[in-house]
């Protein structure tokens, strides 16, 4: 399956990419996607996640065609 992975703000700058397409045959979660994209680096506890533009937890299952985003704590307003 194919997943669209996005990064925002300081995390986007650290990763050096805003958008990555990943392919996988395994069943996936947010945590597994992070591990795959970041070469098994631990997922920092302050990093937030969204699946299809809804906040999600690390263990949230991800389906083919989903959009998964990782970003730092929000600072709007």
């Amino acid at each position, binding site marked *: 399956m194919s997943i669209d992975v*996005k990064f*925002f*703000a*300081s995390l986007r*700058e650290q990763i050096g990419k805003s958008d990555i397409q990943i392919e996988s045959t395994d069943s996936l979660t947010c945590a597994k996607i992070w591990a795959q994209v970041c070469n098994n680096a631990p997922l920092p506890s302050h990093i937030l996640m*969204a699946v299809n*533009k*809804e*906040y999600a937890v690390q263990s949230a299952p991800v389906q083919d065609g989903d959009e998964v*985003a990782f*970003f*730092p*704590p*929000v*600072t*709007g*307003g």
Partner: protein
Amino acid sequence: MKIDITSNKFNPWIQLQTFEKNIIALHGKCGAVATFVGTMRDEGNTVQTMFLEHYPGMTEKYLQTFSETALQRWDILDTLIIHRVGEIQPGETIVLVAAWAKHRDSAFEACRFLIDTLKSRAPFWKRETLNDGIKWVEK
């Protein structure tokens, strides 16, 4: 109910005037309006400009959800949220939030709820351009 994420500079009071003029449903019905305006302060020379990033699609969706929740939870008539994105200069308005109601308690509580949830949950990020480089604002 209006939500606007804009890269254009805006004056909150002109926006409120225009919104009230156009929303006929508020005329005569509204007894109380509570508003909140957030502005970029001028920290002397330390911060030159600010850049506001957001997650297109998700930010709008969440602002919409917050507004719908406010309309369900309190006896209010309407809500307005305008938020700047992109490059912004000291003194400029970052955010405007407003709630129209029959009575003041609901207006205040809904307005407070909107800005508090916006600040804690809406995907916006601030980056400051300082004299000595660029720095993401951290919580």
